[in-house]
C-alpha cells in the first residue's frame, strides 16, 4: 500500500491576474473608452462620441435584455424579437403624432409626459403582442431549436407585413419633442439632449432590472430558473408562468426600446426591428446567452465601438461589430459572462 500523497495546502494570495479575471468584462468598457480617447484627436469630439455611444448602447440593451432572459429561462431562441421593436416604434410614434399639441409645446414637463404616454402605449401593445406571440407561435415548438428558429422567423415576417398593411409601406418621419431638440454644450462638446435622456432612461432601467433580479423573490426565481429550471420546478414553482411573464416583459421592453430608437433616428420603418436584430444578436452572443449584465456590457461595447469607428473610419463601422464579436468569441467562446451551460 502506497502512502497517501503529500497534502500541503498553501494559502498564498491569488495573483493579480487571477483576481482581475472575473472583472475583466466590466473593465472592457472603460478600456474601450480610453482607447477611443487616445485615438480620437480632439477631446470634445471624444466626449460627443462617447455620449452617443453610451446612448446607443443603452437603447440596444433595453431591446436585447428581454431576448437574453427568455433564452436563459426557457431555452427559447426568438428570432422574431425584432418585430416587437418595430411594433413598439409604430404604436409609440402614432401616439406621439396624436399628441402633437403636447410635443410641440416648449414645456419639458408636457414633452416628457407625451413621451411617457407613448412609451406606455408601446409597451402595452408589444406586451400584448408578446403574449399572443408566445401562445400562438412559440409554445408549440418548445424544446426544438430548429423549429423555433424557423417559426419565429416566419412570425417576424408576418407581423412585419401586417405593420405595412396597417401603417402603409412608407417610412414615417417623426420630430423629437420640442424640449429635447438641440444640444447642450459641455466642456466644448455638443451633447444632444435626447441622447442624455436616453442614457438616463437606459441606466434607470438597467438598475431597476438589476434590483428586481437581485433583490426580489420573483427575481430570485428567474435567476434560479436560468441556472437550473428543473430544480426550481421541483421546488413547486410554476416556471411556465414565470416564463410567460418574462416573455411579455421582454417584449414590452423591446417596444419601449423601439420608441426610443425611433425618436433617436427620427424615422421609423417596418424593417427597423429586423435591422436592429443584427446588433442585438451580436450583443447577446458576446454578453453570454442568458446574462443580463453581460448583455449590458456587450451593448455598451457595441455602441461605443460603432461610434468611435464610424468617426475614425466610416466604412469599417459595420465590420467593427463583427470584429468585436469574433475577438470576444476567441477569448471566451461562451460569451463574456456565460450563464447557461452549453447544451
Amino acid at each position: 500500500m502506497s502512502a497517501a500523497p503529500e497534502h500541503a495546502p498553501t494559502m498564498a494570495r491569488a495573483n493579480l491576474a487571477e483576481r482581475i479575471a472575473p472583472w475583466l468584462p466590466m473593465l472592457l468598457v472603460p478600456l474601450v473608452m480610453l482607447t477611443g480617447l487616445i485615438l480620437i484627436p480632439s477631446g470634445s469630439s471624444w466626449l460627443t462620441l462617447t455620449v452617443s455611444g453610451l446612448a446607443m448602447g443603452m437603447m440596444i440593451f433595453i431591446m436585447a435584455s428581454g431576448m437574453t432572459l427568455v433564452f436563459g429561462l426557457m431555452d427559447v431562441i426568438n428570432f422574431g424579437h425584432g418585430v416587437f421593436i418595430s411594433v413598439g416604434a409604430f404604436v409609440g410614434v402614432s401616439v406621439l403624432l396624436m399628441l402633437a399639441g403636447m410635443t410641440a409645446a416648449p414645456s419639458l414637463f408636457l414633452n416628457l409626459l407625451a413621451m411617457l404616454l407613448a412609451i406606455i402605449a408601446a409597451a402595452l401593445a408589444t406586451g400584448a403582442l408578446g403574449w399572443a406571440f408566445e401562445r400562438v407561435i412559440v409554445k408549440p415548438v418548445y424544446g426544438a431549436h430548429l423549429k423555433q428558429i424557423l417559426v419565429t422567423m416566419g412570425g417576424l415576417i408576418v407581423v412585419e407585413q401586417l405593420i405595412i398593411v396597417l401603417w402603409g409601406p412608407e417610412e414615417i418621419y417623426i420630430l423629437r419633442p420640442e424640449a429635447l431638440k438641440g444640444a447642450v454644450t459641455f466642456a466644448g462638446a455638443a451633447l444632444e439632449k435626447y441622447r442624455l435622456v436616453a442614457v438616463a432612461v437606459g441606466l434607470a432601467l438597467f438598475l431597476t432590472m438589476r434590483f428586481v433580479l437581485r433583490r426580489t423573490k420573483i427575481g430570485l426565481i428567474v435567476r434560479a430558473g436560468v441556472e437550473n429550471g428543473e430544480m426550481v420546478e421541483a421546488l413547486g414553482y410554476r416556471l411556465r408562468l414565470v416564463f410567460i411573464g418574462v416573455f411579455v416583459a421582454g417584449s414590452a421592453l423591446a417596444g419601449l426600446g423601439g420608441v426610443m430608437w425611433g425618436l433617436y433616428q427620427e424615422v421609423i420603418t417596418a424593417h427597423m426591428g429586423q435591422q436592429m436584430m443584427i446588433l442585438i444578436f451580436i450583443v447577446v452572443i458576446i454578453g453570454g446567452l442568458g446574462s443580463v449584465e453581460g448583455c449590458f456590457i456587450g451593448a455598451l461595447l457595441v455602441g461605443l465601438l460603432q461610434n468611435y469607428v464610424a468617426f475614425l473610419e466610416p466604412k469599417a463601422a459595420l465590420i467593427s461589430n463583427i470584429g468585436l464579436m469574433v475577438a470576444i468569441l476567441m477569448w471566451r467562446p461562451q460569451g463574456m459572462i456565460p450563464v447557461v451551460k452549453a447544451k
Partner: protein
Amino acid sequence: MLMKLLSGDAPRSRVLTVILMAILFCLAFAPFLFPGVRSVDTAARICVFILLVASYDLILGYGGIVSFAHTMFFGMGAYGVALACTHMERGFGALIVGASGGAILAALIAFLIGLFSLRVRAIFFAMITLAVASAVAVLVSQLSGLTGGEDGLTYKIPRELTPAFRFGKETFGGEILGVKTNGRLLAYYVVFTGALVLFLLLLRIVNSPFGRVLQAIRENDFRAEAVGYRVISYRTAATCISAAVAALAGALYAIWLRYVGPDTALSFEIMVDILLMVVIGGMGTMYGAVIGATLFVVAQNYLQGLMGAASSAVEGVPILPDLLSADRWLLWLGLLFILSVYFFPTGVVGRLRDGK
C-alpha cells in the same frame, strides 16, 4: 445504372417518382416544350434554385443547422462570375475562374464562421450567419466602385452563350423543332447540366457514409460524439460543401442573367424563399428541394398576378385589398411557412412517402 446515378436513393413513392420524372423531362426539354422568353427564364430559375435549395438542405435537413448566410454564398458565386467577366478577357476562362473563385471564397468563409460558432453551440451559427450576411449585403452596396453598389453589374459572357451567336445553320437550318439554335439555348443547357451534375453530386454526398454521420448528428449529436465522430468537423465540412455548391449555383445564375445586383443575388428575401422551398418540399431529402423549388418558382411567377386580381376584386372592402395586394405576397408566404413547419414538417415528399 440508374440507381447508381441516384446513389441508391430512390424516391420511394410511385407518385413522387412520376412527379420527379415529369419535372426532369420538362426541365430537360424546356426550350422546346415551352418556347418563349419568359417560360425558359422560369425553367432556368427553377434549375438554379433546385441546386441552391438542395445545397441548403444539406445543412438544414441533413445537418440540422440553420444558416441565414446562404444567399451570401449564392451571391459570392454570382459576383465572382460578374467580377471575373468584367475584369478578365471575355471567354470561358473568366467564367471558370469566377465560379471557382467564388466557391473557394464561400467555402473559406463558411469554414471561418463554423470555426467560431459551431464549436460552442449550433444556434450560435444561426445568429452569426445572420449578422455576417447582413454586414456583407451592406458592404456590397457600399463598395460601389467594385460591386456596382445598388445598381449591380452587367457584363459580357462568352459570345457562344449569347443570343447573337447562331450555330448549326448548315446541318439543320438553324432551327430544331421551330426553336432557333442560338447561344441562349446553349446557355440554358449549361445551366441545366451544371445544376443536374451538382445535384447528383449532392445526392452522392448525402448517401455516403459522411451523409449518414450527418444524419446521426442531427438526430442526436451527443450520442454521435460518444460513438466517436467529431461532430464539429462533420458539421463544419457540411457547411463548407453546402456553401461551395451554393456559390456554384450563384455562378450559374449569373451566367444565365448576365447581370448581378443585390436584389437578385443577396437580398434577404431570397433567403426567405429558400427556407420556404426547403420546408415545403420536405427537409432532409434532396428530392424535397426539387419539388419545393419547382412549386415555389412557378407559384411566384404566376400567383402574384392572381393575388393582384383578387385584390382588385374585393375593392371597397376595408383592409382586404391591402392584405391581398401583390406586394403583400410575403405575408401569405410567412403564414404558409409557419403552418407548414407545424403541420407539415416532412413536406410534400414526406407526405407522399407516407401515403404510398
